């Protein structure tokens, strides 16, 4: 079964899948292990492509909006596995942690499986996404504390 077929069978939209794959890719090893351990039943799976480390060339644009150029590469680990049900899951994660890629692929497969999707979405993806949003907000609030408040040098106009 191809990935596209799996999506159709699983009735999950591409937009949904892009979102959860992005969330899984940003999750830490421990977070994923914890979520995996907490699963009531762990489905058997076989690797279609054992976790493999490689590179992605990162492109950017001249001036931020112009023509593309190659900035440099980043390490990435990818994995593809098949559940006994036949559903195929993919994991593409930044860095060189093979277990992370494997877990991301396993969750991707479970999320394409109608029987497990809602549970994994709620119990894993939403939690991970919330943690990521919180980390991002925290970083942003720290940065916001360094925002310059200009004031004009006029008597009585300065902030107290």
């Amino acid at each position, binding site marked *: 079964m*191809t*990935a*596209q077929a799996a999506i159709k069978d699983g009735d999950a939209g*591409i937009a949904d*899948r*892009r979102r959860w*794959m*992005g969330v899984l*890719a*940003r999750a830490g090893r421990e977070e994923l292990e914890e979520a995996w351990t907490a699963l009531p039943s762990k489905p058997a799976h076989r690797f279609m492509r054992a976790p*493999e*480390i*490689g*590179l*992605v*060339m*990162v*492109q*950017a*644009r*001249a*001036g*931020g*909006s*112009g*023509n*593309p*150029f*190659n*900035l*440099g*590469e*980043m*390490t*990435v680990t*990818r994995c*593809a596995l098949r559940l006994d049900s036949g559903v195929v899951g*993919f994991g*593409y*994660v*930044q*860095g*060189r942690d093979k277990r992370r890629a494997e877990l991301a692929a396993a969750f991707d497969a479970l999320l394409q499986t109608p029987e497990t999707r809602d549970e994994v979405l709620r119990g894993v993806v939403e939690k991970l996404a919330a943690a990521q949003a919180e980390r*991002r*907000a*925290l*970083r*942003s*609030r*720290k*940065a*916001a*504390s*360094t*925002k*310059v408040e*200009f004031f004009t040098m006029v008597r009585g106009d300065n902030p107290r």
Partner: protein
Amino acid sequence: MYVAVKGGERAILNSHKLVAEERRGDPALAELDVRQIVEQFRLAVDRVMTEGSVYDPELAALALKQAQGDAVEAIFLLRAYRTTLPRFAVSRPIETRRMAVRRRVSAAYKDVPGGQVLGPTYDYTHRLLDFALAAEGGVGAPEADLAEETLPDAMPPVLDILDGENLIEREFADREGESVFDLTRESLSFPAGRDQRLQNLARGDEGFVLGLAYSTTRGYGGSHPFVGEVRLGETAVEITPEELGFSIEIGDITVTECQMINQFKGTAEKPAQFTRGYGLSFGHGERKAMSMALVDRAMRCRELGEDALYPAQDEEFVLSHSDNIEAVGFVTHFKLPHYVDFQAELELVRRLRAEHATRVGRDGELREAAE
């Protein structure tokens, strides 16, 4: 003449052992953990990632540990490692306009939407050694302040939103779908497109690019720049794996971006306008991004109809010498055995001296004869 070409194996092996011991330093002190380097020597890690041209903080930290903190040696290690890996994909161009900003300043416009955000910068520190960092017991866990509100989710580029009069050149993508030059697969070729120049500068040695950038502002390039914007933050990387057929995000990387603007007198066809130079580095690499932006602008002289008079404007000179691994390879290979070469040169110098002596002697005789 016979010259020994073998030998030295034992000396080399023992040299490796000696390096290992010196690298470890005093064993009574705790050994550095790679994660400590990632966390506490982050700016060194960022430089190694940028010039090593591989974004992977743990690998860069490992390289720094192995190289005893020698940035260029660490960059060499990272470059060598990358050749062992397959390439899975080329990303879609990252969208720095959607960056989760942690620092954003403009020297050209004071009032920018979202404000001037200093972020984690050394700019306004006093550059006095802080002996508290050397104190026993360390600094504990310092905490940053937290604002009530986050910064806006996306901060549009300053130059795009504040230049309503079209006084600053726009950057358009008009080569969509064309192949992008890749220095990891092709050799330098001239004349170089901007894609080749930007990739070369991004990987280029910070010191070299900084020095060239400085030269453009000191009369060797006629540059009077303003920082339109410098920003630091996290940007998503997106790829489209063949087997999926749609794009997915594979993580976030930290980048520093610099939009530099420069005066341009205009030509018969084009009215005067500010032109742009662009700099981008992995991690927090502001000095590098700013330098890159200045040299990028200097090398745009040809397309802007300016005379190329100075080193920073000479793309062949800049691109051929910016890569520190190539430069190190050539400069330092001179310390490797050149015994045969040198013997040959010795012979040559002996012969020239002998000829000189003969000539002087003959001239002397002739002079005497003339007198």
